[in-house]
Each structure stands twice: as C-alpha cells, then as structure tokens.
C-alpha cells in the first residue's frame, strides 16, 4: 500500500508534481520560473505545457502541498500580475517521503543489478 501523507496526497507523486515540488524546495517561484526550473533540472526531458502547469499548481494548492506567497522578491523587477508559490511544511514532508521512496526503489534495482543504462 502506498504511504499516505497529510491531506491524503498519495505517493507516488506524478513526475510533474515531484519536479515542481523540487523546483520550489529552494525558494518561492512564479509559474514561468517553475516551468523553467523543471526543464533545466531534467535537462529538457520534462517540459511542462501551460495547461498542465496550472492544473498541477491548482491540485498542489488544493492538496496543501504548496501555497501562494504574499511576498515578492523585488516588485520593481517583476510584473505585479505574477503570483509566487512556495512549498508548505506538508509539501516538504511529502517531497521527503517521495524521495525516500525513490531511494528505496533505486536500492532494490541496484540489489538486483539493474543497470541505469538501456541494453
């Protein structure tokens, strides 16, 4: 049975949600910055399209994993229509649990001598 966190957000997280939480783990970001961070972190493997990005933001907020931030890094440097998001303590817990789950999966794969390289 998958472990369930607060707000009943089930593990495993979808790859998009996992990478979005990772993107927010080092500081609050607006939508485009999240999109860009995920793309950079995954070397372009995950490029979140517009609708999926905001659908995921809505679900992460609904699940209590992220929240809207009132603070702005520098209002002069940024468009005031942008909203910033930050990870919540529940989001950090969930992210940590997901990372542990992935570590266990990798450990199992290594124990079975499954290589990360195809072929």
């Amino acid at each position, binding site marked *: 049975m998958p472990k369930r966190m607060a707000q009943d957000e089930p593990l495993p997280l979808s790859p998009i949600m996992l990478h979005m939480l990772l993107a927010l783990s080092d500081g609050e970001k607006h939508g*485009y910055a999240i999109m860009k961070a995920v793309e950079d972190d995954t070397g372009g493997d995950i490029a979140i399209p517009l609708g999926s990005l905001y659908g995921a933001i*809505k679900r992460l907020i609904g699940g209590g994993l992220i929240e809207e931030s009132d603070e702005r890094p520098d209002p002069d440097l940024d468009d005031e229509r942008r909203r910033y998001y930050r990870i919540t303590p529940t989001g950090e817990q969930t992210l940590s649990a997901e990372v542990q789950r992935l570590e266990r999966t990798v450990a199992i794969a290594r124990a079975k001598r499954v290589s990360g390289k195809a072929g």
Partner: protein
Amino acid sequence: MNTRTPRPVVMQLWMLRVLMWLFPTGFRKTYRAEMLQTYRTRATNIYARQGYRGLLRLWAVTVIDLVVTAAQEHFEPSKRWQRIGGLALIGGGLLWVVLHLPFGVGWFQSPPIAMALLLIGLASMNFERTREQRAAPLRMWAGFMVTAVGLMAVLVGYMTAWIGGWHQTGITTVTGAALQSVGLLVMGMTAHENGKSWPMLLITGLVSGAEAVWLALFLWQDMLMASMLSVVGLVVFGVIGAMCWVGLGVMLWREGDEEVEISMA
C-alpha cells in the same frame, strides 16, 4: 518588465485568450491572467532563440495540452458534483416510482424528467476520474468514450422503449429495454474502473436486463401489455428498479462526503 512582445506571439496570445474559455469559470478567473503572462514570457524567449519553427512547435503542444487539461478540469472530482449526482439519482429514482405506481403506466413510460435526472447522476458518477487515472491520459479518455457510449445506450434504450410502450409495439419495447440494460452494464464496468458504487450500478443494470427478459417472455406469449401492467411487473421492476436508483444516489452522496477535496474552493 517592459520587453516588447513580438507580433506572432501577440497573435498567439489573442488566440490563447479565446481558448481560455474552454476552462471552467473558477479556474479561468483564478489563472487566466497568469497563464497568459507565462505564455508570453515563454513564447517570447523561444521566438528569440528558435524563431517561427520553435514558436509553432510550442503553440501545437500548448493547444493540445489546453484542450486536454480543460476537459480534465471540467471532470475534476469534487464533493459538489458528487452530491449533485447523488441528489439527481435519488430524485430521479423517487420520481420514477412515485409517478410510476399510481398511474400504472409501466416501467418504460416513466417520465422523461426522471430519466433526465438519472442520466445526470450516472454522468456525474462515471465521468469522475481519480488522480491516478488522470495521470494516464489514454486510459482516461478510453474510459470517457466507453462511458459516453454507455450513456447514449441508456438514453436511446429509454427513448426506444418509451416509444414502444406508447405505441404498444412489443418488439420495440423489448429492444429498448435490452439496450438500456446493456448501457447500464457498460457504465457499471467503467464505474468499476474508478471504484465507485459499481456493484450497485451492475445490479441496476441486471434488474433492467431481467425486465427485458421478462418482457420478451411475455412478448413471446403475445401478452406484452399484460406483463407491463401486472403486479409483478410493477413491483419487481418498478419498485426494485427505483430502489436501485435511490440506493446508487445515496452511495454517491456518501462517497462525496468521504472524498478528500483536492480542488480549490
């Protein structure tokens, strides 16, 4: 920041504003301005680096994704929709039996308003998708298609049987009953996919199917109308059928209570 937006991006933003109407009102109001802003930044950057080709690729991906995510947002499970679906099924079931018995008009001549309510309830129950299912779009859309086919079968079956009952045409009534039953069983299977009340839906389909067999047997004996007006026909297929609908509604309502709200209020 006042960077100049290239003309092709401006045109895409204009079309994007139109596409935004695909989304539910709440979602649109909350995210519209921000989505446009995000697209503007992304498209401007891509246009600067990759030109028209990159911009067109981004546009194609964005349009497909917007259509899919807008549909997902409309079918997002929520307490509100589950409760409305539950109430529709309860109301439809009660109307079915209340208007059915005193007039003795037979199962297939139940009022269209009852059927409309039942269809709303069935749609609410079957179009709901779990997060795991939404993560597998192909499977999710296959489920939607099967559900739509099931709903159509129930609706067409009801109308066929209604017409058959009205004109006292036995074979039409039986065909309608059978089609309605098949539709309910198909929907029972898709409801099984999302783990919602499917045994009750299958029972409802089986009751409807049993009625089709019952009618067919009497048709074979050339006694169709007698079967529809018989006490057995009224009680078994009228009362038990309606109880199934009400039961489904209560279960759906209760599941709506249990469901964790994951969408923004």
